[in-house]
């Protein structure tokens, strides 16, 4: 039985930290993908064809409520076998696609809540002033809808960051898989896995505080607005 050893800790740390680039790279690329695909869901769900919107809604619900690890396995192991469209992905690309698409389903919900929070009067005013569809969206709706969603998106970025080590299961060499292979080589898992936990904590806790700060800032702005409305009533 081995117990905690600082020697192993100091030996493993520089090896494991080399994986941080891959872990962070995967986090950022999948998040960018999620931001883009989130918009796609929004558009697909607001076509004039009700039946189509309904089907898209359930596809999104399906992706959202099934485990991301199975989706990663699907894209990595099974996608090459899909007739006609199947190609094999590198582990990194497979994980990026799976996590990006999985989180896009949450992101589109965030976008929707942002758009819903824009007062109806704003739409009506834009129509009354004869704004074009493009101007209505880009000059009136989105500038009001997007800022309140930033803290929510920040929260999802942190959650996504914590799902990224799932990619270790298909061989993406991030901090977790380096820690595991270190453990397999030296038969000491305790220190390497603890290092991974510490790295996650060190990165996600301050980001969480930052998001909370942003949230408070947004809330204050929102509150000011609502009191203004009350005064004019």
């Amino acid at each position, binding site marked *: 039985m081995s117990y905690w050893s600082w020697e192993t800790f100091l030996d493993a740390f520089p090896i494991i930290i080399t994986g941080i680039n891959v872990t962070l790279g995967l986090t950022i690329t999948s998040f960018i993908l999620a931001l883009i695909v989130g918009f796609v869901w929004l558009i697909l769900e607001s076509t004039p064809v009700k039946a189509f919107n309904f089907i898209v809604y359930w596809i999104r619900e*399906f992706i959202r409520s099934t485990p991301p690890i199975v989706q990663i396995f699907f894209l990595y192991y099974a996608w090459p*076998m899909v007739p006609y469209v199947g190609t094999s992905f590198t582990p990194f690309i497979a994980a990026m696609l799976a996590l990006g698409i999985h989180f896009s389903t949450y992101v589109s919900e965030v976008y929707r809540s942002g758009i819903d929070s824009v007062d109806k009067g704003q739409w009506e005013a834009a129509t009354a002033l004869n704004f074009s569809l493009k101007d209505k969206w880009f000059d009136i709706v989105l500038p009001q809808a997007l800022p309140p969603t930033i803290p929510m998106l920040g929260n999802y970025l942190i959650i996504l960051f914590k799902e990224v080590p799932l990619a270790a299961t298909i061989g993406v060499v991030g901090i977790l898989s380096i820690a595991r292979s270190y453990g397999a080589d030296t038969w000491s898992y305790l220190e390497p896995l603890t290092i991974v936990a510490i790295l996650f904590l060190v990165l996600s806790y301050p980001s969480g505080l930052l998001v909370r700060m942003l949230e408070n800032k947004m809330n204050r702005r929102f509150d000011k607005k609502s009191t203004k409305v009350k005064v004019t009533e």
Partner: protein
Amino acid sequence: MFDTGLNILSYLSQGLGTTISIFLTATAISFVIAFVAGLSRLSGNILIRGFTAFYVEIFRGTSLIVQLFWLYYAVPMLFDINLGSNWWVGVIAVALNYGAYMSEVVRTSVVSVDKGQTEAGIALNLSRFQRMREIILPQALRLMLPEFGNYSIQILKGTALVSLIGLTDLLYYGDIYRSTNLSEGPLAYLMVLVMYFIIALPLIWLSKKGEKIAKKGVAS
């Protein structure tokens, strides 16, 4: 195609018991943790408050898969104890992780109950315990429902990780099937996803219902 689909389904169903038993046990335990930890963070005792804050932030700040491996590989080495079965390791990892998240739901819901309610309770000479039990919690519970529904789906998704520590759940049988019938891989994983989705459907329904209950009769 249809036949192979049914074939795969009956093969996968061997793992259904493990997935569901882990899901139910982990959910039950995480609810207990959520209430204990959530209320402890509101305690007047700084030691209790500090300790629970420590637990919650550690488990929220690291990821489930890391915690699972830590419990599986590192804890037996560190404390020289055996957690018994892998089944319990899986349950404890999932429950500790989501218990931490859900304790925040409990805490924020309790805090969001109007202060006047507490003041009225004090005015009526209710004890701290009575105030919490009779006045605050019944109102806070309603606010927790939609989030609890969402987290139950997250717990279900989290249980898929237990195949990584050698438990024979849905994903495990999907993997075995895929590795013996490579060309049917897409269908095998699709069926795994469908089975998870079928288990998730009542949870989706419950969280929608929870949202409605939470919205009812609340002045906005």
